[in-house]
């Protein structure tokens, strides 16, 4: 299951390279697709090695890989997310939805600290926060995925307050945030695998 999770998440990110690049070209420096592809291609290459580890260790190693390979601010941000999830889930034998929700709450706080940011500023946090909330409410995984996709779309009318998009001021309005979109892509793929494996 861990093997499928890693592979399908990586494949989803890689398949969305062009879309993420287009979104980042509109309000940023246009590197998000390539950066995410670089990081997640590395994870995909290591997926068998990662899947052979305990889930906490695998997530920590995945986070470290993203920190070292992505090459933009999203490296440390996704790196913090996965390393924090790994730390929270390490040694847990029964990982159910409520355990994942609790771990994601801690991971969300780690991303907020790393990015000096909070939800509502047109970033990946605008997807992570509602996903965490849905998981904590015990929502069906298909609903969690749908909420992630909708939350990414809902970043369009927000004026960016963080990252390079904030330099555009009001001109950032009307565009979906690339980091929110990549978080939704990751969430959708992860929910699909978790749903399938029960």
């Amino acid at each position, binding site marked *: 299951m861990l093997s499928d999770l890693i592979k399908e998440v990586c494949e989803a990110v890689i398949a969305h390279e062009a879309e993420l690049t287009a979104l980042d070209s509109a309000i940023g420096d246009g*590197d998000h697709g390539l950066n995410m592809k*670089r990081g997640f291609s590395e994870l995909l290459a290591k997926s068998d090695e990662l899947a052979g580890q305990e889930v906490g260790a695998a997530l920590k190693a995945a986070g470290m890989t993203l920190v070292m390979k992505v*090459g933009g601010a999203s*490296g*440390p941000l996704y790196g913090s997310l996965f390393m924090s999830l790994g730390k929270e889930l390490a040694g847990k034998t029964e990982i159910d939805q409520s355990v994942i929700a609790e771990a994601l709450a801690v991971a969300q706080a780690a991303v907020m600290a790393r990015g000096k940011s909070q939800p509502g500023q047109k970033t990946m946090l605008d997807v992570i926060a509602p996903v965490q909330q849905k998981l904590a409410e015990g929502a069906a995984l298909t609903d969690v995925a749908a909420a992630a996709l909708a939350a990414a779309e809902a970043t369009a009318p927000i004026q960016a307050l963080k990252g*390079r998009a904030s330099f555009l001021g009001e001109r950032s309005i009307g565009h979906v945030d690339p980091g929110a979109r990549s978080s939704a892509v990751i969430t959708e793929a992860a929910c699909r695998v978790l749903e399938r494996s029960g």
Partner: protein
Amino acid sequence: MSQAQADCVGIVIVSHSPEVARGAADMARQMAGDEAPIAWCGGDPDGGLGSDVGKIIEAIEAAWSEQGVAILVDLGGAETNSEVAIEMLDPGRAEKVRICNAPLVEGAVMAAAEASGGASLTEVVRTAEEYSPA
């Protein structure tokens, strides 16, 4: 990258662009001469515009001084990746490294000038951060 003795605070310049980082380091070295160690890095792990945590750690090591190291960064990712690089150092070293909230080129020149006079890390960072165009 620098033959300087590490009696002075070291300076590290981190830009999205290797050319910008090297150019800023050249300007800083004009002020600092060979007194303060200066290192620079730029670009993502594939050589495109961006940041690379591994290269930032190498630059900190190249400019290492027991007096501390001041880092100048340009945009968001350079700062975030520099913060991660600092956290990955030995704790004893990490506490001697600071990121300056200053413009990259001007901050590097001001920091290097201050460092070459033997100023402390706190003074070097403050000088870079107090810079404002005349």
